[in-house]
């Protein structure tokens, strides 16, 4: 999925074909933070044209796969159900709320995420199922790997506001914002974030986890 996004990005960024941003995200203990979204927003409003985007979030063994999806705003995300049981996918996230009431095999219509923001996904049948769709207002983004590194490529030269979001981020991404000028060649940025506890519903009721 990330690769796919990248391909789009690369294809769409042809005019300013130039810069690269290498970001590292650590927490306040200096540990690498994986699965953090690093995104760069041009301050000049020079955003490359972006075509139709599609993403798929599957439901396998009563879990969302993948757990984190980053899309450019306006993207369509489909929620196929590969489990042979009913799910009830929903989100009450402002601007991107949706609900796909109980369904099993038949493919539901994709959900369009028109507004930027974090969309928390849940399943009304399985409380522990949790996934996030990060709807970015810029096509330049990447997700950190296990080493906490993300690489944003094909950035047209110019000034960018770079922000980071993570499910455990304490505070708003704007607070981490760094402005950087992209010229020829790579630019390195380091982010140190404060993490909060991430609570999982029904964590304690492990005996039920295998049952439904």
């Amino acid at each position, binding site marked *: 999925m990330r690769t796919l996004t990248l391909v789009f990005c690369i294809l769409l960024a042809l005019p300013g074909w130039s810069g690269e941003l290498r970001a590292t995200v650590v927490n306040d203990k200096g540990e690498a933070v994986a699965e953090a979204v690093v995104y760069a927003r041009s301050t000049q409003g020079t955003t490359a044209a972006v075509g139709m985007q599609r993403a798929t979030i599957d439901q396998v063994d009563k879990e969302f796969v993948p757990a984190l999806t980053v899309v450019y705003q306006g993207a369509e995300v489909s929620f196929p159900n590969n489990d042979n049981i009913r799910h009830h996918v*929903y989100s009450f996230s402002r601007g991107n709320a949706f609900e796909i009431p109980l369904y099993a095999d038949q493919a539901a219509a994709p959900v369009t995420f028109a507004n930027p923001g974090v969309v928390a996904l849940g399943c009304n049948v399985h409380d522990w199922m949790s996934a996030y769709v990060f709807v970015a207002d810029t096509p330049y983004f990447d997700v950190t790997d296990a080493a906490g590194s993300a690489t944003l490529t094909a950035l047209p030269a110019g000034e960018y506001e770079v922000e980071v979001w993570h499910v455990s981020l304490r505070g708003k991404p704007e607070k981490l914002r760094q402005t950087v000028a992209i010229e020829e060649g790579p630019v390195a940025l380091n982010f140190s974030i404060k993490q909060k506890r991430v609570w999982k519903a029904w*964590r304690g009721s492990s005996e039920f986890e295998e049952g439904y």
Partner: protein
Amino acid sequence: MVGLLLAALGLVFYAVNRASIDNAMERINSDLDITAQAFSRVLEARIQNLLERARFLSSDHAYRQIYGFGEREDLELVTFNHQRRIGADMMMLISMDEEVLADTLHPGNVEMSASLEDFVYRAFDSDDGEATAMLRVDGIPYQLVVVPLYAPDPVAMVVVGFRVDEELVSELKEDTNFTDVSLLFGLEESVTTTAACTLGPALCEEQAVQLITRPPRIGEQETRRLGGEPYVTRVLPLQEGDRNNVAILQRSLNAELASYFRLRNILFLIFGGSVVLSVIGGSVLSGTVTRPVAVLTEGARRIARGEYDASVDIPQRDEMGRLANTFNDMARGLQERDQVRNLLGKVVSPQIADELLKKDIELGGEEVEASILFSDIRGFTNISEAMSPQQVIQMLNHYLTEMNNIIESHRGVVDKYIGDAVMAIFGAPLPDPESPINAVRSALEMQSAMSAINRKFRDWNIPEIEIGIGINTGTVVAGNMGSMSRLNYTVLGDAVNLASRLEGLCKLYGTPVIISEFTRAACPGLKCMELDRVTVKGKSEPVSLFQPLAENAADEATLQRHQEALQAYRDQDWPLAMRLLSSLQETAPRPVYQLYQDRINHFTLNPPGPGWDGVFVLNTK
């Protein structure tokens, strides 16, 4: 004895009581330890149950939906609804920004109260967004839980509260083997609330007052008194680490001891019964032993005071009765002895009576120096013939009483009366170095007393009498004489016989008193007139006779001429003797001078011959 029994019973009772109470305490303490663990588990289980209910509620889809799309009003309505659904007493919805979104206790409230902050922050900082607490909200104690509202992310906190009330504690009581439970809130705050208490209103109130002055300490194992009864207590935190809100577990010691109390009542009955029995036994004993002993003691005291008529009356047929009889016999014996003693003092002189009673009476005697006095009424036989027996007795009694008194006043002892004669001893049984002079003084006083006695006799129309007295001093044998069944204390010996002879000579010489030369020698300074030198019948040794004189009886010149006359008589110078005697007869007439003139007349005709020693031989008694 009853006291001893009581002491023994008391000791047994104390030991049993102590052991039972200690045992009950031990049992309660070990029970309370177990109960405390059970209590904690029960409480924990309740909290878990509450948490699960809250979780269930917070996962309610409609709740999420309304949270996602609804207005505040909607949130409040659904919160009220959900509170009722799980039967909670309060419910709140608090946003992650700590804004109160719904509050069933205070509709419209948006600010989280300070009392909830710590509790909610604890949830924020926890691994799962959950927390539980015992808290007072608006002063009312609640069991609170807080869980996140997942929509599907944690978007808010749902606080659910159950009142901590009597229902809760009575359930806890049932779950903990009926241990009484009190829940206290706010120990570390200014106001402590008794949230609930199973002891009943009165005791709960009393406890609340007590706790102000004597606050409970976590883990305490104390005995507190409530309603006058001891309760063993345990204080537990309501939640781990909570020092502010505690549970007090109470077990009544008396309830635990109930079976022992029944036993104790039986013991009391037994003890009481045995005390009553021993009191009865004691009074019977006192009736048969103590009282008789008291009676005997009183009797013995009277005996000691000399009241020999003391007899005791103990109408018992046991040892006491026999003892009383023996006592009475003893008292009678003593009384008789006392009577004998009194009688003896009359029959014999008191000194002899004492002597007799002092020692074991034995026959035989000892040689002592004593002076013996004999007195006799002259011509008593002739006198008495002319009198009636009553008069004789009257006369003798009066005379002898007077004589006796005089003799005793000079430390003499009347040995016996022989008809009209008196025999008295001086110097025995008690030694008296002045016995000779005492005897002489006694004799002179007896003679001078005769004028008064004769006056009395004239009044009684009884003939007047004269007495003669003889005294001798010498070694005598004094002691009890006679047979063992009948004996006299008396003195025997030649000295006694001589005294008797001297008394008999009074008539011959016409003198009232005659003493021997031995008595005279023992009375230095005594004025005497020599009467004669004689050999009495039955004796070979001559003895000189003297008449003791009162101090003013005769002048020296007369005595001198008397002595010259005697000397001339002994020198056989009859004319000189006759001349001197005649002269004396004229100036100081005495019968003895006639006696000597008669003798000289006889010797003139029948000279005694040269070598005559002047001793006159008496052939009569």
